[in-house]
């Protein structure tokens, strides 16, 4: 991909480490929590509409 190498000839070690740490320590954990929380929220809303979960024994 020549376009990219033109725009950014060589990433510095500092920028790479910073990006790595921001991604793994902040962005991805936040996304994971959001995703699980969003899933829980959707289930909650469906319970409001359909009533509490039914379990048969």
């Amino acid at each position: 991909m020549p376009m990219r190498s033109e725009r950014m000839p060589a990433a510095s070690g500092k920028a790479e480490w910073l990006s790595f740490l921001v991604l793994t320590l902040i962005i991805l954990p936040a996304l994971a929590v959001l995703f699980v929380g969003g899933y829980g929220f959707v289930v909650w809303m469906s319970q409001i509409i359909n009533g509490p979960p039914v379990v048969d024994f």
Partner: protein
Amino acid sequence: MSAKKTLVLFWDTLRSPPATISLGVLAFGGFVTGIIFWGGFNTALEVTNTEKFCISCHEMSDNVYQELQETVHWENRTGVRATCPDCHVPHEWTNKIARKMQASKEVWGKVFGTINTREKFLARREELARHEWARLEANNSLECRNCHDYDSMDWDAMSDEAVFYMQPAAELNTGCIDCHKGIAHHLPEPSGDSPVIAQLEGKAARSLSSGEDYYAYKPVTLFTGADRALPAGNLSLGARVKVLETSGDTVKLSLDAWRKNKGYGRVLYDQFGMNTRVAVLEKDAAGDAALVEAGAAETDDNTGLDWSPVKVTLWADAEGFVADAGLLWDVASESYAASCSGCHAQPDPDHFSTNAWPALFSGMVGFTNMDASEQELVLTYLQNHSSDHSSTH
């Protein structure tokens, strides 16, 4: 560096193969942070699933937690005890996460002090209790059954009385909460508003039109005049009336009914020979020929009693009526099924006659949690759908 430039540099760095960090370091770093995240997530989930966390709000520690300490779920001969989340947080992952999100509503309540005094808590206790009952009824008391199991019950170790109730429940696989409400916390004080009546409140007729038939969905006080000064009696739940005139919130209505020509004729019934009560009048009103117009008497051969048709004209508050009796019967049949099927297969309403139902019903109703209004509505439903009103029996 501007924010936009930083973002572009960040994005470009993420899109390019690493130039200075080795693949091993990246994989190892990702692996380790993943473990730390997963552990942290679970720890947070567990910390918020402890009793200590639950009672960190005074709303819980001052009210329900104190009540728990009086019960067998707190202290008993086996030394096993239930903590808040054992009963109140689903153990299965999806429902647990949903419950955790639901707790955002509790955070809201904490911040805005929804139940921050004893009075506020007591005022909402019934609503809160009903949420938990509905949840446990839907999942067939799953959280109870995480510990308790019909199959593990030793009938010989139980008292005869316990076996008498528990064994049929085991055969029907009845959910624990159906009978054991109020086992770990106090029951809500009866608020005076019957939940069954409250259910019908939203379906009440907004305005009544002259010439139409309506049905009382709650006890309605009758008056002798449009000024509503002198009470003349009460309409029973399910009583059918014809609206003659309306003025403001007062309505003039007529009631076609029957009475037994005995005593003062205060009790009015739906049909000849049928003990389905529709109204009870004050003594003076019952004897007032201007209000109660009686027709020629007929004799009921079964009982030898004389019955007269009566046309009653009285006044009432325009509130308390529904336009369609079906609304009443839907609520009543649901309540009948829910309350009675807990112990036995409930008979079809048309299995018994109108006059047989009152005695049968009053013999059984003590085993249920029905309040007075609910009892009246359900009995009226049964009488109106008895074998006398059905073609199948």
